[in-house]
């Protein structure tokens, strides 16, 4: 039994790729305006209250409205801490990251 655990550890260690990306925060594009950087800081803070930020990084969305619905659903979770205004700001970060700054013009 202990041998199995050791083998599992070795196998996991062997699978570790050398370069690893830090992904504990949502980062805006370096060229994005300060408003979007601030929005992404807010998103990182709010979203990690209940789950790792990985959940957001891995989400597959098809259009900006998808992010609006997604954040609205998260906002309904207990203790989300996401107010209506927070949701609007967080969506701007997520839309800018996923679809570029031009897509922000379509947001309400």
């Amino acid at each position: 039994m202990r041998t199995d655990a050791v083998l599992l550890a070795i196998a996991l260690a062997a699978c570790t790729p050398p370069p690893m990306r830090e992904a504990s925060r949502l980062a805006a594009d370096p060229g994005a305006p300060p408003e979007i950087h601030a929005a992404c800081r807010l998103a990182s803070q709010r979203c990690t209250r209940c789950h790792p930020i990985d959940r957001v990084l891995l989400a597959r969305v098809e259009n900006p409205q998808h992010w609006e619905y997604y954040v609205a659903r998260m906002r309904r979770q207990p203790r989300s801490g996401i107010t209506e205004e927070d949701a609007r700001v967080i969506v701007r970060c997520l839309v800018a990251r996923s679809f570029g700054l031009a897509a922000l013009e379509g947001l309400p």
Partner: protein
Amino acid sequence: MRRAPALIAAAALAGVAAAATADEISRNFAGSIQLDYLAVPTEEIAREQALDGATAEVSLKLAVDFSPNLSANVKVCYACHGFEVGMAFFDARIADQLNFRIGRFTPAFGEFPLRHDPANHRTSDKPLPYDMGRMLRLREWNMSVLPAPWVDNGLEISGTQFLGGLTQLDYAVYAIMGPKGAPDALDFDFILSRSPAAYYVDNNSRPTLGARLAGTLGIGTASTVSLGVSGMTGTYDPENQLGFVLLGADFVMRLDPVFLRAEYLVRRTEMSLGDDPASRFRYGPGEDGEFDDFFVKEGWYAELEVPIGRVDLVGRWDGLRRRGNVARQSPLRSDSILFRSTAAFAYRLHGALRLKLSAEIYDFSDFDDELALHLGIAGPF
């Protein structure tokens, strides 16, 4: 028999997916996997007291947003019990202060159930008050106070009042089927809650009722302190003769990336005395000549989570205590206690994939002390 839940789950997933065809409807597919290996080096053969070895926990979730105020969620889990439907509900928001959740869900109780998914917490296993089968001596203790995730059918009404900044007040009230037990039960029978042999329906025609109230106080722009209280009560036998009351209190302090959490749960559960209590219980009657018809089970944990670069460090102290008479064949005493200390770290291997390692020292009042080691890998997708 085993295929039936899987087929039902697949059909439910397909049904929700098929409904989400209009352009304005958004769908999100997500999931997580954890493979954990539990070793007990202080025992030559640990299977007699634990479900050691490798355990896989898999979840697949489909969320469908019909509008910003209406969504459906279906989640299928595969773990020790095989396939289970962990979520199948509609969420309807009327206002921040009024949401309806209808279907199969985890009712609002305590803090840990919010992050019960293995990809959402940093240790391989759960705090003892919420353990679901990974603790040592699980059979002797009949597991924890409220195994998480507690999934049940029913209705929940909840809401949030935002009070500026990060400060908010949350409430929830719900009616669910509740736990189950036999007519002559001495405790909950958790297998009945997930066994198709007893049907996935209420066993006593009366709902279990519960409520939760939690307040969060914002400190600065990124730190919060939260306090919550939860309660649940009902009967768990078919004749509605055996009642229970479950209470909980939780505290979470977040100092930006650092979390300090603590919870306390206590459950008073009535037992069937039967026709001949003297032959049924290990201990005799009290000074008044009567047998107590209840026991009290408590559980608690305090946990500090500190991220340092790619590593999340976790230190946890948790425990269980059971007071009250026990079945004649039980190895527990009338006052049994368990303390556990855990040191754990989760290392970010790549992206969202984490290697989890933890060491747990069990200090039993009724059994030899034990060391348990977990090695696992977990991640969302």
